[in-house]
């Protein structure tokens, strides 16, 4: 038989198996990924490949005659490109084969395997990795289909569940909390007090909501101006009168100074609330020590939250993401089944096509013979005879084709297609230069953790 049996595998290192010192050494840029892909493409060990490289993982998805040999070759290519010893890579690597490799790819795309459960960035990174491999000519029909399925499952997880929707950072949780009270922020006025790291992160998140106005207050006006220019807002020096005035008009106030005294006092808020006519004010104090007097929350229209509250929101969001895991796992299983079915079809479809070609060839031969013996047949007679002979061919093949398709798809066993090919003598045509993906025997393994040396 001219069929080559091949395996899908993934070999990689991630935050779960490798320390950051190693991950940063094997984190590949686009040029390096192209270099690895070229090495893999030019080998006979790996027929198709995709390299996914992020700050938390390096994974090489491959299709080859042997998963172990392919994994070894892939890590050797990484070692050659990065200068990290191949044995060190092996000690921290994991390998998944067959169905496990496909399932793993889908779990990664859905963000289930990420440091932050359910993060959505990884899907874009996997899409980019696949397109890079496509550009480099490192993928073929199997990986083109596989990665389309992986990306499809990742998209479904994002759109059909809330796995990546809720905020998991304190700065974004602040935006979420403000929106829970005020709704959309595009017609709201936001005040950010401070221009440090945390204030900057929050200001960027608020800026992305396109509020009506965004004012940055800071002791150093230049820093406030720099941040305001970045997020599209106005800058003000930090003074009590300015803040008091801003409180009267603002809908959201975020403070992140932490200078040890209250920047927003109960009196300032009480005075501001007089002119607000019951309009709600959301105050988010993410500084430690706190910038806002906790007493301000005694006013019925003031919603005050500190950093502990925001961490509570983040914890609730993470819990909610974890609740969605069962739904995402079900989508992954559907994706694995769809890919498995496609693989089974690839075994049977060429045989069926060859069978139809054989039937048509026989019909052509018989028709030619008939015309030699009955040369007086008119064009109309020829058409009628051709039509009826084709009808015989199709009726004869209908049942065997239907049954072999069903049996192959149900059992995943390629021998039905092979038997059909052998019965009709199709073997030399259909099996030439074909590969068969060994599918059912999924397995995974990793290096013995005890043998892992400390990185120097």
């Amino acid at each position, binding site marked *: 038989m001219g069929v080559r049996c091949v395996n899908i595998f993934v070999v990689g290192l991630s935050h779960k198996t490798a320390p950051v010192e190693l991950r940063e050494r094997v984190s590949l840029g686009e040029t390096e990924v192209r270099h690895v892909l070229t090495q893999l493409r030019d080998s006979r060990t790996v027929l198709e490949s995709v390299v996914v490289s992020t700050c938390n993982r390096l994974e090489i998805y491959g299709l080859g005659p042997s998963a172990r040999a392919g994994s070894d070759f892939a890590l050797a290519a990484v070692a050659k490109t990065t200068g990290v010893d191949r044995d060190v890579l092996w000690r921290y690597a994991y390998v998944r084969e067959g169905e496990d490799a496909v399932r793993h790819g889908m779990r990664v795309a859905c963000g289930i395997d990420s440091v932050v459960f359910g993060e959505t960035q990884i899907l874009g990174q996997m899409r980019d990795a696949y397109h890079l491999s496509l550009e480099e000519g490192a993928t073929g029909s199997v990986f083109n289909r596989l990665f389309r399925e992986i990306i499809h499952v990742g998209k479904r997880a994002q759109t059909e569940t*809330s796995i990546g929707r*809720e905020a998991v950072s304190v700065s974004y949780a602040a935006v979420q909390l403000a*929106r*829970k*009270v*005020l*709704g*959309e922020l595009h017609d709201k006025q936001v005040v950010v007090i401070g221009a440090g790291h945390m204030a900057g992160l929050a200001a960027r998140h608020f800026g992305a909501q396109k509020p009506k106005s965004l004012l940055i207050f800071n002791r150093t006006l230049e820093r406030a101006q720099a941040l305001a220019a970045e997020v599209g807002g106005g800058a003000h020096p930090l003074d009590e009168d300015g803040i008091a005035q801003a409180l009267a008009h603002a809908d959201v106030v975020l403070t992140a100074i932490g200078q040890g005294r209250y920047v927003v006092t109960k009196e300032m808020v009480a005075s501001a609330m007089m002119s607000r*006519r*019951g*309009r*709600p004010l959301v105050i988010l104090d993410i500084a430690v020590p706190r910038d806002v007097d906790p007493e301000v929350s005694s006013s*019925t*229209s003031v*919603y005050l*939250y500190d950093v502990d*509250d925001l961490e*509570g*929101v983040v*914890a*609730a*969001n993470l819990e*909610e993401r974890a*609740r*969605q895991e*069962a*739904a995402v796992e*079900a989508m992954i299983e559907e994706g694995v089944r769809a890919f498995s079915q496609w693989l089974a079809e690839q075994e049977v479809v060429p045989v069926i096509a060859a069978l139809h070609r054989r039937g048509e060839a026989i019909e052509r031969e018989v028709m030619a013979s008939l015309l030699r013996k009955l040369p007086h047949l008119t064009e109309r007679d020829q058409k009628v005879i051709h039509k009826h002979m084709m009808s015989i061919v199709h009726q004869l093949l209908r049942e065997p084709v239907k049954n072999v398709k069903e049996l192959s798809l149900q059992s995943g066993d390629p021998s039905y297609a092979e038997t059909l090919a052998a019965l009709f003598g199709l073997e030399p045509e259909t099996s030439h230069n074909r590969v068969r993906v060994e599918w059912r025997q999924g397995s995974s393994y990793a290096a013995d953790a005890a043998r892992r040396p400390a990185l120097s």
Partner: protein
Amino acid sequence: MDMGTWYVLSMVAYALALVWSGWSFAQARPSSTRIGYGLFVAAFALVTAVFLARLASLRGAADYSRGDLALFIAWLMITVTVAMGRGGASSPVALLLNAVGFGLALLAGGLQAQSSAPFLPASSLLALHVALAVLGDTAFAFSFSFALMHLVLEERLRRRLFDRWYLHLPSLATLDSLALFASATGAGLLFLAMVTGLWWGDRVLHQWLLTWPKFMVTAFCLMLYVSYLVWRMRRRVATRAMMVFQVICFVVVLSNLLFVGGRLP
């Protein structure tokens, strides 16, 4: 089977749908969400059958009973839930809407048992009055549901309780807008219902029914909702207080429905 049995069956299905969806919301299990939605569809089919059977038994629009009105509002709430789809049916919005709807459907059964023969001379003006009044009460029921949701979310935000109700309820601002819209619609419809009712009294009974208890309590309800609308537009009062006031308004509407008879003097 008689209509009473169908009614009991529909209430059992409705209760099951409500309990299952509540449990499914707490557990966040997709398979149980599907079953919950299926139960809501079953409850919708049964309540629709009961409601249509009731309508078929009426000789005219004016023959409707207070039970029919309560059942109609409950039916609308299940319809909204079914229209929200599988995901929406297990959301806190649907759960609170249907908690109100189920209460009204139970009330409908109780009121139906006390219903008496029609007593009002029929006319197309009366039919218009009935339709406007029913739609107005429905708008108030929705407004009450949104006010309840607002109070539930507000409570969570005050207590820093960031649970699934917090995550899945719409924002306070959205709920406030929905309650405002539903109240304004209800008040407009109720006003038109009162005008058409008075007009009908003048044309058919040849008297202005201004001293009729039903009219006076309805006018009081309208005054309450107009007060809410004025406060809301002028924003003199905190939103939470306005939502509590909304709940009080609906209690008065229900009291009007339950305790103030529709018989003419």
